């Protein structure tokens, strides 16, 4: 059995921009992801972090075969699934499931919770008998911390946190090998967020799930994931195991992200010198040439405008795409709380 459950290589997804009425012609493209390669190991939680528009959700959707890549390959359990169709695709969908961000719009308001959770069974023709299916659904509801007696209720009768539990129950119904959770807690209140995070961690432990966890909140990703990929403007700029990434970030963008996170600790906040990136993320329709971060990078050198850096191993253990990676001293001055915490 391959160690990697899922592998993507040089994944590119461009969304065409068309103009004109009758004779539509393509005038450009949104470079949503450009050359993303990563692997998801069996049983791990891989985090993908980045800001709005960095391509993290598109990566997830392409990985799940919900969007077709412009180029690149997707390999699931050693099999190339980039272009599979029909029955094979349906079988693949059974193995990978998704949890969405918005628990309000991802549940059909006109269906009872019981039938929402039973839908995967119906699609794949499992648990045929009516009583059998109901028992299966109620067991799932119990497992995710919902009251099984609420089987006949409708989504609007549940709070945001409970709805997210419904989404989780639906995702684990078919015992998939891979679950991709796209910002599963960003719409929830702080106290509810912790409930859902603990639920996901518990399920992963009990069911041996492999989880891809996508979020913009760096603290949440650190808490949930063993390995983390940081994305900026459609590419991975740094990838490492969590302890390394959060104690010895190498890419200046990762450093800036970590420095920008407000920490709920009055003393750490008082001693911190926030490193503030200037400007905004450039438009993905016309990304900067060479290193895409060069327009905002505090360490820019002439070569950064000319040559795109490759994702290569850097001192400390990270893979980073940078010509001039951060040194330990720079990390210590920019993000002091982290360096001392590096274990």
């Amino acid at each position, binding site marked *: 059995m391959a160690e990697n459950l899922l592998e993507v290589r040089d994944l590119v997804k461009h969304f065409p921009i068309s103009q004109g009425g009758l004779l539509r012609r393509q005038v450009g493209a949104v470079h949503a992801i450009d050359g993303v390669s990563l692997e998801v190991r069996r049983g791990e939680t891989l985090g993908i972090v980045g*800001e*709005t528009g960095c391509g993290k959700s598109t990566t997830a959707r392409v990985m799940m075969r919900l969007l077709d890549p412009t180029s690149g390959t997707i390999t699931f359990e050693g099999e190339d699934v980039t272009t599979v169709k029909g029955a094979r695709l349906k079988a693949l969908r059974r193995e990978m499931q998704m949890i969405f961000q918005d628990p309000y719009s991802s549940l059909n308001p006109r269906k009872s919770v019981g039938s929402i959770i039973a839908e995967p069974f119906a699609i794949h023709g499992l648990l045929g008998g009516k009583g059998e299916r109901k028992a299966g659904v109620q067991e799932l509801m119990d497992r995710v911390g919902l009251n099984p007696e609420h089987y006949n209720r409708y989504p609007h009768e549940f*709070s945001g*946190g409970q709805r997210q539990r419904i989404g989780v129950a639906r995702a684990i119904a078919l015992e998939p090998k891979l679950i991709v959770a796209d910002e599963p807690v960003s719409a929830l*209140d*702080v*106290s*509810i*967020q*912790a*409930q859902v*995070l*603990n639920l996901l961690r518990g399920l992963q432990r009990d069911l041996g799930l492999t989880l891809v966890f996508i979020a*913009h909140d*760096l*603290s*949440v990703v*650190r*808490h949930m994931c063993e390995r983390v990929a940081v994305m900026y403007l459609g590419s991975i700029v740094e990838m490492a195991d*969590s*302890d390394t990434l*959060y104690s010895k970030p190498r890419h200046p963008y990762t450093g*800036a*992200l*970590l*420095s*920008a*996170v*407000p*920490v*709920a*600790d*009055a*003393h*750490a*906040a008082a001693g*911190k010198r*926030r490193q*503030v*990136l*200037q400007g*905004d*993320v450039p438009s993905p329709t016309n990304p900067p040439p060479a290193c895409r971060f060069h327009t905002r990078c505090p360490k820019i050198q002439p070569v950064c405008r000319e040559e795109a850096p490759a994702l290569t191993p850097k001192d400390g253990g990270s893979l980073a795409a940078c010509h001039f990676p951060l040194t330990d001293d720079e990390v210590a001055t920019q993000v002091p*709380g*982290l360096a001392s*915490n590096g*274990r």
Partner: protein
Amino acid sequence: MTPLLEVDDLRVEFATEDGVVHAVDGVSLAVEEGRTLGIVGESGSGKSVTGLSVMGLTRGRNATISGQARFDGMDLVGMADHELRSVRGNDVAMVFQDPLSSLHPYYTVGGQLVEAYRTHHPGAGRGESRDRAAEMLGLVGIPDAQDRLDSHPHEFSGGMRQRAMIAMALINEPRLLIADEPTTALDVTVQAQILELIQRLQSELGMAVIMITHDLGVVAELADDVAVMYAGRIVEHGPKTTIFDAPEHPYTWGLLGSIPRLTAPRDEELVPIPGRPPSLINRPSGCSFHPRCPYVRPAHTEVEPSLEPISADPAHRVACLLAEPARRKLWGQLRQGASPQDAREAVLGAEVPS
């Protein structure tokens, strides 16, 4: 020093089809010049309605507002609409969460800034107002300010729109700025820019700031004092370091235990608060937090706690029915990593609350 704004027993109720929503239920707070008060709470805790009501923005046919909000000797709650209009946007200004829906899409950013200035400076000429608008856009860090005056809001990115909102709020040099989740819709690097901007402008202009947020991190970085709200009331209030180092309310403990922190060990378990925030129409009897509180005693379902100063520190006020020594012991246990159940057994005894 007398506070710049002193809110006293503010109550806001909304009559709805389902019943009366007690959005704010007896909130008292104060902010001094040059200081920042952070109001934290979850959705429905009444933190935004408190801010909006101080600005007179919750007045309406279905709203009942009582209490006082004394600003510089004037009561903003009791003030007539036309009088309030001369204060709002002038002495007291507000920044909202969503800059796209708070800016008018049809008018240019400059036009909206000029309007804000001329409303309170009726004698100002067009050219003077435009210069002032450009100066403000420059101050909040928008490049080519003079040219950007003629842009429409959709031509700005999220961070730039929020900067434009802040420029508009500050154009009349307010003495109090109320910021309602000003960075919630923004990415972390942009959030860092905006927080730094607010801090810098505050130190330059000496204004007081009320920062309303659900993010304890933002409060830790920006606030001098913190008020924690739950179900329309302040449950704990004190200096920032006290709230983070020696909190005394079980809800504050719960909030602090619910968030993963970059400075904590990575394998630290999160301790969520069970259940969910109560309905503001049928609030639980007694202490509003009792259905979710791990340390609840039978009496807590009947008696309402009031916000009382603790004996050791008059600046630290807590609305909790547990005895002070018990609270301190519980926090001591929790800080050493005990679960709420273990802490309860160790401090309050093994009896299981009914």
